[in-house]
């Protein structure tokens, strides 16, 4: 589904906007960036607690249009700047990776 539509549907608090042309097909949940870069599918939403600039680098390289930072992690300014530059969305949530994963799964399967 369209990334913007997805963000609205999950009621995400975006701190960096999503690319309105991007598509979200699935999700990937990991706090290990090496694992994410090896395994995160293209067009997935990346669910993590890693709130720093390197997460944006990984997202750019694997083709992830949206990062969700869980457990109230706050994206630092340099991360937001990098994300805007690379047209990658960042959302912050108080939910855990587990909770947000369920939500993401529900929304993606409902609309299929």
């Amino acid at each position, binding site marked *: 589904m369209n990334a913007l539509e997805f963000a609205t549907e999950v009621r995400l608090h975006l701190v960096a906007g999503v690319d309105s042309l991007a598509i979200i097909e699935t999700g990937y949940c990991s706090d*290990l960036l*090496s694992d994410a870069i090896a395994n995160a599918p293209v067009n997935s939403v990346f669910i993590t607690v890693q709130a720093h600039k390197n997460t944006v*680098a990984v997202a750019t390289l*694997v083709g992830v249009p949206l990062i969700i930072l869980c457990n109230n992690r706050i994206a630092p300014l340099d991360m937001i700047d990098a994300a805007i530059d690379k047209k990658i969305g960042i959302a912050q949530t108080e939910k855990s990776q587990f909770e947000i994963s369920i939500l993401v799964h529900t929304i993606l399967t409902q609309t299929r």
Partner: protein
Amino acid sequence: MPNESGKNISTAALFTQEALFRLRVSDVMTRNVVTASPSDTLRVVQNFMKKNRLSGIPITLDNRILGIISVDDIIRALDFNYIEDRVEAHMSRNMVALEETMPLSFAVAYFEKFGFGRFPVISPEGLLSGILTGGDILRALLQEVSAEAERLSSSQPHSIVSPRALYRSFEVYKYDFSNAGKASQEIKAILTEAQLAPGLIRRIAVGSYELEMNLALHSDGGNLSFSMSPSAIDIIARDNGPGIPDVSLACTEGFSTANDWIKSMGFGAGMGLPNVKRVSDEFDIASIVKLGTIITARFFIPPENKGSL
């Protein structure tokens, strides 16, 4: 190239940023630290502060740091009339210390994050080896900038590359977390422009990112190069140390020598080299302890240009 966002940043600002990553805390810190012992009275510490014009003094025993006393603690002691008490009853024990080997960029982030005026610095053995203040950082940066200005006035700037070159070379600095990944992003942009298959681009991007992160995380700094011929792409990571004692162990999934703060950033899971090996068509590693490591990852471009992951 779309990757031109930094072009309006002045050369001096870029240089300062580079210096922050290149310099270690130990390069910059003040080494002769005035300390007090836990059995001293707050009055003694107050006199130390006055005499040496300090706003905070670490409390140590046998060179191990136990706490810190700041001007605020002294003022409180004067207000509430316990200035003759022993230090150990009133020192702040919740401290954040920097490690000698941390890049200065980390130290700057700590100053922002914690709002303290100074951080004690500990050696790899856990002993107090210095103290770092904002003033130390400023002084070091000023020195670096003026030395660079002198160097620039006597030589030509290096690394001028044409956007369509088939060879690129990137310097990677130790612990430069916030710039690590830039080389791979640029490589990916070149490949996208060359219209290679998305699967192949991703494999190359993964390989180059892991090699780039390895240089930043594990080497003393090095160089990542990218070259493209009509049939293959080579990504080569070279560094000048410290070398890998057991190469086959280093290529085993799950083996890692990363320290805790590397791990806290989501790296150092022991997946780097195995990932590079998995995504590349040819993988070669040569390492000599103390001298350095060269890793080559080669990716073939299929005639029909259809990469798959």
